[in-house]
């Protein structure tokens, strides 16, 4: 369900600045589908984020990007959907714990800073989030609001 919507979304964006014939559309759709399969579906995670996780992310994201407006809502929904495509939920949660708890003071914090897997996952989630934010216009709304 979600996958279909995302595929059609990407076509919409292209559609809006192209005037094309029926044949071209069919060819384009076929091309887009192949492209989608190669670029997105092949690297996709399980797209298994629970609703609660998506909603929490969206609220947190809105709060840190200028508050609750439709602009931030759209951007943040876009980001979490993209993150969910790229990483399985359990791995995302693990990465989140490492990144949240790196700054835990004292001896205890070491267990979140020292393991190799900690840096690996923190870097991974950072890259995915950065990529998603760039393509979802995150922050533009907040800037224009100033």
């Amino acid at each position, binding site marked *: 369900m979600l996958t279909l919507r995302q595929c059609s979304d990407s076509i919409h964006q292209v559609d809006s600045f192209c005037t094309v014939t029926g044949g071209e559309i069919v060819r384009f759709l076929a091309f887009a589908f192949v492209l989608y399969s190669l670029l997105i579906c092949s690297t996709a995670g399980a797209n298994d984020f*629970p609703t*609660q*996780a998506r909603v*929490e992310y969206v*609220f*947190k994201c809105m*709060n840190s990007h200028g*508050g*609750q407006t439709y602009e931030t809502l759209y951007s943040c929904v876009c980001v979490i959907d993209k993150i969910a495509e790229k990483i399985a939920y*359990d791995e995302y*949660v*693990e990465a*989140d*714990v490492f990144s*949240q*708890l790196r*700054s*835990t*003071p*004292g*001896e*205890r914090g*070491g*267990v979140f800073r*020292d*393991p*190799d*897997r900690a840096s690996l996952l923190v870097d991974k989630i950072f890259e995915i989030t950065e990529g998603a934010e760039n393509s979802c216009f995150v922050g533009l709304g907040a800037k224009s609001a100033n």
Partner: protein
Amino acid sequence: MFKRIVAIISVSLALIVPVTSGANSELMQLMNNPNNWAIWGGDYAGTRYSKLSQINSSNVGKMQVAWTFSTGVLRGHEGGPLVVGETLYVHTPFPNKVFAINLNDQSIIWRYEPKQDPDTIPVMCCDTVYRGLAYADGKIFLQQADTHLVALDAKTGKMIWRIKNGDPKSGSTNTNAPVVIKDKVITGISGGEFGVHGFLAAYNTKDGSLAWKGFSTGPDSMTLIDPKKTTHLGKPVGANSGTNTWKGDQWKIGGGTTWGWYTYDPALNLVYYGTGNPSTWNPVVRPGDNRWSMTIFARDLDTGMAKWVYQMTPHDEWDYDGINEMILADIKVKGKDRKVLVHFDRNGFGYTLDRVTGELLVAEKYDPAVNWATHVDMKTGRPAVVAKYSTHQNGEDTNTQNVCPAALGSKDQQPAAFSPRTGLFYVPTNHVCMDYEPFEVEYVAGQPYVGATLSMFPAGRVTGDGTNHLGNFIAWDASEGKIVWSLPEQFSVWSGALATAGDVVFYGTLEGYLKAVDAKTGKELYKFKTPSGIIGNVNTWSFKGKQYVGVLSGIGGWAGIGMAAGLEGDTDGLGAVGAYKSLDKYTQLGGVMTVFALPD
């Protein structure tokens, strides 16, 4: 004549008995009624077991969040709420606020926020945690971080008395939950990283005056050890056992702090607890066994005198504090009914001792990765240390590699649970190893006195089994010293467990999940993601015929999304102004207590 004497004695006994034998009779009654959760461990034995069974292994999967309460404090939330009748009492990390919550409508009846010197924060080694309150005789006892022990009126929150238990300027702080037994409130001290001289203290509940104080190290007059009567594995310890295994005056800054949990056996009138690491961490500069750091103590409640001691890790070289909880249970060991004390030490061994005599019955590894010692010698009680993992033998400025467990132990303070129905202990554990390098430090009061650098990693890197998880949740047979089942957890489990008569075991994870598993098989039955990592203890109670399960989430630096007081206007939540005034009556930003129940 003889008859008259007997009669007099009987009358005297009758007069004395109600005062001395009933270990705070009101509190005992509250603990016996499973509708309450009146003490940190559910009972004096620290079993963390509830007789409630409305939520059970066949319906726990249907649990829902019933209500939440945000504490308004960030930082790590350890411990759990107390429930007495219609009131729930919950505490926070520094500044150690206390809330009394009316269970009828979850409104705040009163709140108490102590003014504490913020200079206390830098001398707290491991986040500004606090593990909870004690209730007795219509009073709530609060052990503040700055060492003030406070008695509050449980109905109004008004302060009744306040005393000082230590000096933060010299590195003393408190993180422990006090415990009330008879007319005394028992508390300890933190600050082993600052060379604090550890002790257990009993204050009179009436006015806060000191009844006794037993130090972990020092001459017999300070340790309250009788050289002839106090035993170590059945043998009298001899004179000044608290000084003669230390070099010179080192025992004065010897650590042996007491920041864990305290349990009590009313029949034996003994209080049980463990002492922490000797200071400094660097073992090279403090030769000897460093008695009685890393020790299980059994002290007489009335006098504080030590009946028996058992040192688990003589001459600690790894910071394996012995402070973890002592769970009291009556189980069969080698076919014989025994009154035992079960203790999962940071050093990775699960100990079963006879709690009457201090006899060592079982000492086995509760994480197979443990490698610093091969076994515990059952005659001497000493661990057989493996030379290549001895940070002392390797010396200063040598990096001792691949030691298991890491300094935070196979288990830290988060208390385990015991179910008399299954006879099993449910233990939240770490599965972490370390590289450890001691270096030379000088002691300055109020400054960290650590002297070691360490680096931590998953135990799988040492065992070579290809795993990378950092924790396990296990079921343990304390009669045999065997793991019955073990659930790998991606992160160390720092949440206290709860076992119930519904044959469900609950615990929290650092991802923020509250999990319910089958007490017999370990099968996962339920999980729910709370707003932040869980390092609190799961507690349960019943109100108006409905069973509830509650746990604090919130861990240093991670506050979830901080939206408890409504999704907008978050920053106003604390100030309680304008439109948020009514909201503030119900909720505070920060760590969150999540309360679960079955739907109607």
